[in-house]
């Protein structure tokens, strides 16, 4: 029964718009720090994220990054190598990272030894001494890494964009290679006391612990607090200028175009998600179709909705052959204007709708993804209702709404344009 198939005709498709959002279990440490547990019953893999109010915005110097990276660099009892060997004894891994708002310590391991692994790491960070020798090495390493990074046109454009967009606010502050020299151990110790010990905001735990394990886990973090006050963002004036940085010998030019916008708590956020996807968020987007797939000016171009704790922004980012710079800017403008002045064809909207539904489904697939969804919303004072609204918006949005959203928020005259190359 081998029927001849018609290859010119696409198979039928169906899209699921039902997603089962799972609530994590919630516990509190003695000090009132929330511990969220998402069950992972399919595997032994465990991930624990500690989130601290210890982002780079809390200090004028690049202290946050150094402190975060040195959390496990030694105590008065143990050297960095000893701590690392002991983490290895449990088959554990860890990763420290920092954003403008928060520092994160992620711990990876297996169910069989979660609690002892976490006890070991908690002890090492609570008693961290930030040894002088390690700090000097780390400063050198960071300085050189920054110098290397400053050789990239993408970094140059991104930094200038951030500095101009958030000029006068902590989000617009940039690190420079010479900033590291003046940082001392005392800076780190003070930052650690104020932002880490008092700023353990929450703990996310993906795993499958027993009741006993949860009990002892929660007591492990009793000596940490969650009392860093909200830092209101002072008034600042985002720039809308055109900035061209020169980098001799560059064969490509980095481009960042964008503006201050809003974060996910704004009523237009979901509509902007659809607008942004159409413009530059997926492989078939207008920017990709025009500037990569039609003209071949770049390896990739995209647009993004970014956010920090207090605000959000919109940015278009690409690197193009320098001979294509001028026309790329023209084409980007054309695409912005087209979104603002013409309704989206129904066929394109249907495609983007389906693509986004698929993305939502994928973004909710498995306990690690589910924990991430929960945590991002929770950090903004939202819950899973946020994602339900997103789904509803994607299903219902009309070409008229898309056009008016774009018209309101994507005026190219209001945009900051940075090029580097």
């Amino acid at each position, binding site marked *: 029964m*081998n029927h001849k*198939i018609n290859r010119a005709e696409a198979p039928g498709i169906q*899209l699921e718009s039902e997603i089962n959002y799972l609530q994590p279990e919630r516990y509190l440490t003695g000090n009132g720090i929330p511990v969220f547990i998402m069950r992972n019953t399919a*595997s032994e893999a465990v991930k624990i994220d500690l989130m601290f109010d210890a982002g780079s915005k809390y200090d004028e110097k690049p202290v946050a990054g150094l402190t975060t990276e040195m959390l496990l660099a030694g105590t008065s009892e143990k050297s960095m190598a000893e701590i*690392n060997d002991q983490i290895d004894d449990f088959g554990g891994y860890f990763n420290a990272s920092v954003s403008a708002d928060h520092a994160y310590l992620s711990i990876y391991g297996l169910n069989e030894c979660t609690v002892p692994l976490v006890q070991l790491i908690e002890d090492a960070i609570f008693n961290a001494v930030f040894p002088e020798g390690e700090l000097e090495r780390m400063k050198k390493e960071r300085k050189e890494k920054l110098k290397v990074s*400053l050789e990239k046109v993408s970094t140059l454009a991104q930094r200038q964009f951030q500095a101009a967009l958030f000029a006068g606010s902590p989000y617009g502050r940039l690190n420079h290679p010479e900033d590291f020299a003046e940082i001392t151990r005392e800076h780190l110790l003070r930052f650690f006391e104020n932002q880490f010990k008092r700023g353990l905001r929450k703990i996310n735990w993906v795993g499958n612990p027993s009741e006993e394990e949860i009990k002892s886990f929660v007591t492990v973090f009793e000596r940490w607090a969650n009392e860093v006050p909200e830092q209101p963002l002072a008034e600042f004036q985002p720039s809308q200028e055109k900035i061209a940085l020169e980098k001799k010998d560059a064969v490509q030019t980095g481009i960042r175009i964008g503006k201050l916008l809003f974060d996910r708590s704004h009523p237009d956020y979901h509509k902007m998600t659809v607008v942004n996807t159409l413009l530059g968020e997926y492989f078939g987007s207008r920017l990709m179709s025009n500037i990569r797939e039609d003209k*071949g000016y770049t390896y990739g171009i995209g647009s993004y909705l970014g956010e920090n704790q207090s605000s959000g922004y919109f940015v278009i980012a690409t690197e193009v052959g320098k001979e294509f710079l001028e026309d790329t800017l023209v084409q980007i403008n054309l695409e912005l204007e087209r979104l603002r002045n013409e309704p989206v064809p129904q066929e394109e909207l249907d495609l983007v709708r389906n693509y986004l539904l698929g993305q939502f489904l994928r973004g909710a697939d498995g306990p690690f993804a589910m924990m991430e969804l929960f945590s991002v919303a929770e950090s903004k004072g939202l819950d899973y209702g946020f994602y339900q609204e997103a789904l509803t918006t994607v299903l219902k949005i009309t070409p008229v709404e898309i056009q008016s959203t774009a018209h309101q928020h994507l005026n190219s005259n209001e945009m900051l344009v940075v090029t580097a190359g």
Partner: protein
Amino acid sequence: MLHFHRFQLANGLTVIFHQDKTTPMAVVNTLYDVGARDEDPNRTGFAHLFEHLMFGGSVNIPDFDSPLQRAGGESNAFTSNDITNYYDVLPSQNIETALWLESDRMLSLAFSEKSLEVQRSVVIEEFKQRYLNQPYGDVWLALRPLAYKVHPYQWATIGKEISHIEHATMDQVKHFFGTYYHPSNAILTVGGNFENAQIEDLVQKWYGDIPGKNKPARMLLREPQQNEYRTLSLERKVPTPAFYYAFKMSERKSAGYYLADVLSDEIGKEKSGQLDLQLKKEKGLVLEISAYILGSLDEGLFMVSGKLVPGKSFEELDAALWQVLDGFKSNPISENDLLRLRRKAKTSRAFQEQGLLNRAMNLSFFELLGDAEGINQEETIYNSIKAEDLQSCANELFVPSNCSRLFIHPEKPSHES
């Protein structure tokens, strides 16, 4: 333990189905047994350029991506020196969309002139973005020909030079497709919440009528035994001096591959490994240092690379580095260290197995190695490794006549007169 169901179509297509009842998504992974090592030395970068063209429309479907996106899915691909791998991830009820698209481009491409012209340009921009306009970006373009004199691993997947991509013609594209893109040169892996019979029927439906061809014979020149310490120093516009030591190591299918893999984990341990302790902490010579293997199918490279503390000399580094490596030759690592490596490997396996896409890609890759079942034997292989095996591996690897060394010196600032 990964379970799978394997079958073959009459046209030679090998199919692996991996059931996962926990996910609403499906994965369709297609591995073609062709990589940069199969290229003509005068037309390098072709396998990768070709990968781009695979998205430029097939014989019955003008555009690959739109129908997939319309079905809620997305797709990507990568080319290595050994293989070209394409994957689609989409809601499982729409799996036929992926099978329809993938089978049509296995049947034949559209061979559009416009697509060739645009993708040539895109790949040239990729060449610039990743290899030319990045600090240290051209390191592999210099290191590969130093380490390999005969074997096609001497060029990177992007190609030796931009002109090879510029000169690619439609005839070459068609010839490449005819030689390498057909059922017997592919491994299709499907993952998701389906039943064996369902996948057998669907794959037969979409792939059954693609004509079979003989799998192309691969006759690569064997890299002759290296007999000298090869060294190269280059000046580049970079802020920090960098070093790259490349040691020839065993091919993927040999026991020596696993030994080198574990040895690189031990030597390169961040913050508690010997390279870090001695070169970074004790001697203050390096800003960062790591050890890793490239994982090639043929004779590969065991790498030790990093950045020098500015002001320190490469000579000092060279002496100190060889001293650390010699330590691994004369002393076996401790039982404790071996145990730690095993425990860490267990954790990282648990994480690797989290993603359906990862599992599907790995199953395809092990099938290419000879048997998808190999994926379930790796743990036993790794756990059987003893300290003295690693010591003898170190003795084979860490000799100057097995090493190619590249130093990158920062260019002296030029003084304009």
